[in-house]
């Protein structure tokens, strides 16, 4: 049944996510992601575009800026995506084994 499979997947996802957070792997990955996105110029590009959007707003609102960022923040550099996915896969593989 589709709904049961979905909730199985969901529950597995949530379990893995919890383990990732508890082991500190989540924080390490976020840091690694931050370094790489910074080095790729992606962080600065987002910063600059969001600043531009804020300057056009009479009264800057967080929700609008967040929506703007969400729309723009695709196109994470492929190399960065691959590296992070590899790290995540390695973690998940280790979790499944144990």
């Amino acid at each position: 049944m589709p709904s049961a499979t979905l909730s199985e997947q969901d529950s597995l996802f949530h379990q893995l996510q919890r383990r990732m957070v508890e082991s500190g792997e989540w924080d390490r990955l976020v840091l690694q992601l931050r370094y790489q996105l910074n080095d790729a110029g992606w962080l600065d590009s987002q910063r600059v575009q969001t600043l531009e959007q804020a300057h056009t707003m009479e009264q800057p609102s967080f929700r609008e800026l967040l929506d703007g960022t969400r729309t723009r923040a695709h196109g994470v550099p492929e190399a960065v995506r691959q590296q992070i996915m590899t790290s995540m896969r390695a973690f998940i593989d280790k979790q499944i084994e144990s």
Partner: protein
Amino acid sequence: MAASPNSATRSHSSSPATADGLFDEPTDPNRCSHIAAVLADPSEGAALLKKFRGVVSWKAQRSHEALHAAKRRKIASPTCGTCGLTTPRPFVCLECPYSGCWQDEHVLDHLRDEGHRFCVDAQLGIVYCRECQDMIYEPALESAVQRATLAFEERESRFRDEKRPRESYQPWTRTDKDDAALANTTPLPCHGQRGLLNLGQTCFLNATLQALLANPLLRSYFLGDRHNPRWCRVRAGCACCALDHLFAAVHAPPPRAPFGPTELLAAAWRAGGGALAGYAQQDAHECLITLLNAAHTSSRGSTLLKCNCIVHSTFGGMLQSDVRCPRCGGVSETVDPCLDVSLGLGPGKNTLASCLKKFTQSEDLAVKDWACQKCGKVSQEANKRLSIKRLPPVLSFQFKRFEQRGTETVKIDTPVRIPATISMGPYTTAALEAGGAYPGPEAMYAYELFAVINHEGQIDNGHYTSFARYDDTWCRFDDDKVTPATLAGVLGATAPVYMAFYAKRRLDYKPHTTPSYVLTRETEAVRERERAERAARQAQAREKEVEDELLATV
């Protein structure tokens, strides 16, 4: 002197919430009135602040643990009060123990359902107000975040060479004496931009000076009157006095016509030993180092070792060079002081991080027949690795663009992408020795770009320009022409970056030690006293002898 336009409306708020916000406007339209009302109430305000500080401290602790915890020890994984799932980024209600996710608006539902008004993003310490329906700005909370995070970092960081912990940050609290001193003064803005006249191919000097003017530590030092030319003991030609005059000129009340930095040009010529003299184009990097050394020499109390003059306090770092012997595996460490870091450019895409990675990579020692000190054997394949042993408050990077090829010097125009912020952790000696993990909180390694020097053209007919910022406002400086700029313009400038200046996001103070010149002064004073006492005793003894002789003859 003209008063600043806002001085008439400034009133001194004495409420505890804004105790260290001397120039806060109580009627700032950008402030959230809802939270201001809560903070104004003594018991409600205190409770809110307490909860807020608790969240910030919790987050600081947790972030630190996540990166430094012992293996197999679980880190707290907060869960959402509504959906029960792990939220790596919890938003915490400031009026009850609830915390939840932002994405699915669970925390917002909670605020609405319970009639609570505020929640805080644990990660950044930013507060959301339900009535404003927006993230809010509140000075008291801003300073609470800084203070709580800083307090945690101070506890967690230990300096390597001193056993004592960091000096704790003490905020300035106004006393009646301060009030009296400030009573008849007019506040002036401590930021200013002024063009610099080109005195004959001196754009190299002008670009360097704009980078020094934008340096927050130098600005505080000179605007804070720490080197007053009237009391300076060095006679004519003091580079610090010249810098003081420059800072005063740039912050003088408008109109500010372009300023001619003749004193500093003369100081650079003198101190450069003739190398920077003449009216030909010179190297901005050489000019910077020359001026810094001149300022160091003319600083009161500067010493050759462990100097704490303004130049060394600001720019002084230490580089460690580890040479590894391939025979015995022994490593010989050499530590050298430095005022800046010179990075070579490589093929392909150059970014600051890639240049730093190259800089700290292990490479073969250029010297052949290197003799190891530990095993005494000579080898050809020793390898050397550089790392940064001590990070200065201001990091200056120079990209080696001028290369000697045979008899001529060529310019390398390879573009380099520099970031607005960088974390220097991975390039420190501590990190490289520990294989990546570095001690101390992450924030201690964060640096922010504040000035850039660009060079376009060739060696002999090139031109230096610079970018510098005050707070978030960037300007472009082209000798006497000052134009507004944006971060986008700085990072995307076509003229190649020659030098980049970064300031540490958080300053850390090492434990207080008496400066060496004060110690020598005191020991001298003690010795003087002892000498005087001895002389007095001897004089007394002689008198007694004479008396005895006289009595004997009687």
